[in-house]
């Protein structure tokens, strides 16, 4: 089982796209370490040949007709999804320039 240390927490934070302050790392090392230590009890369970249960239902999923619908629009006819976006330009979502 993994040794939970500063480096591992930093790596997981990076993978999670989370920015941690230096002061936060120690707390997460302790709390995540404690939780995983508890979770490690699962190694005691014999699960040989047990099919994992990833979903909440066994039945096959219900599919709906694949059909294009108008996106809900506001009173002026603009798509509502854009109305509440953080930043919009020419009917698209605007983000800062991220490639040179």
């Amino acid at each position, binding site marked *: 089982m993994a040794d939970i240390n500063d480096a591992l927490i930093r790596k997981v934070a990076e993978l999670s796209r989370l920015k941690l302050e230096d002061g936060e790392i120690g707390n997460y090392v302790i709390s995540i370490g404690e939780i995983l230590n508890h979770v490690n009890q699962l190694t005691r369970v014999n699960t040989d040949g047990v099919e994992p249960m990833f979903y*909440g239902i066994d039945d096959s999923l219900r599919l709906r007709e694949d059909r294009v619908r108008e996106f809900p629009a506001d009173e002026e006819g603009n798509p509502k999804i854009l109305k509440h976006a953080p930043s919009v330009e020419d009917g698209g979502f605007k983000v800062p320039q991220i490639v040179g």
Partner: protein
Amino acid sequence: MNSLTSIREIHDSFDEGLSDPLSLTESFFTRIKESPHNAYITLCEDRALKQAEVLRLNLKTKFQGKVPRASHPLFGIPLGIKDVLTMDGIRTTCASKVLQNYIPPFTATAVERLEVAGAISLGKLNMDEFAMGSSNENSAFGPVLHPTHPDRVPGGSSGGSGTAVAADLCVAALGTDTGGSIRLPASFCGVVGLKPTYGRISRYGQIAFASSLDQIGPMTRTVRDAGVLAKVMAGVDPFDSTTSDRPVEDWGAVVDHARLDSGSLKGLRVGIPSEYFIDGIDPEVRSAIERAIEFLKSEGAAVVPVSLPHTQYAVSTYYVIAVSEASSNLSRFDGVRFGMRPEEAMKSSSLTDFYKQVRSLFGAEVKRRIMLGTFALSSGYFEAYYRKAAQVRRLMRGDFERAFQSVDVMVSPVSPTTAFKLGEKAKNPLQMYLTDIFTIPASLAGLPAMSVPVGKDQLGLSIGMHLIAPRFEESTLLRVASRLEGKTS
């Protein structure tokens, strides 16, 4: 406390002209604004008053003073909606800074069905951020206070819902339950909470925490009201592919029959899982549950000991699966299409840095769970954590299937203790997670479960009894709960 506690009493008062949807709705807003509980994050007062006025006029003219109970079972009933469910044009925050300005363009199916049935939405109820918590202390909008003991927590994550129902800040509320988030606050606040079978109620418009576990359900003052609300919300929805087409019984009528029939529990086999009656249960909680079991016996039920041998692994299994799903679900909060985008994010030099600036708005518990989930799904650890937990989940479901061959329903405490003090467990996440030890197994197995008030401790804090039934057997829960109601406190 409003003297009208149930849907039926309110409808009778409408029929008799003693009240109407508008004056009732106005009286709730007055109470909410005077309340110290911090139960609501956002009120939709204009929208609600408009709904209420239309209903008031319809009652007078179209329906000639008689509430159309059959076509509109929730006619003029003011509800609170947990802020994890979207409503078109109404701010939906999930109690997170990340969504503090999010105004969704669509309404959750569950909310829509309630409103079509005549319900009035008063506002959006406080909760733990992204429904992650057992005390409602993880809200970016501040903790919710317990309805009667302001130094205590209401339970979580649907803490606003529990307090609002108990403190008469709505007639009934919607909560959501991933590992106990309806049942725990219902128990702590002394109200009824029903988590239906996974797949019963559409999750469309429920901001996802752990999709294989999340389920919407009612929190109410009476068992009958829980049945009425659940019935209105249940059934197939094309927008949630996991919804079931199993027939939905008239659960309000199920409760009415059971209440009138003192022999309705005769021959019912009630399972007592030995693993749920462990050391560490508060003695007052234990004796209240034992009294309730004696009551069920006196009603003709047969009490049968059962065993759920993998119960000790429930919290571990749950926390691996729930955080793994959460880390994936919460990756959508990237500040591009909706939600908050802080100023600093616009100065980012890379997309990764942009995401990190946006996601710095998550609270500490949410960050912890995203990291735990990312870890459990990461290369090298996936097999040992996520896959292993999913295998143990299958074994836990097998435990239930075996036990339900010899019983119709199982009972236990909802939680080992009554409502604890604000701050008591906030510094120790593992202790907080263990609060849910009795509610988690039914969630993992997708079973319907319920919390019903069965007493109070010496401090006056409510004690809830936990009922678990086989999949799609909500009627059994409601039948048992309706016999327990008001008899054991």
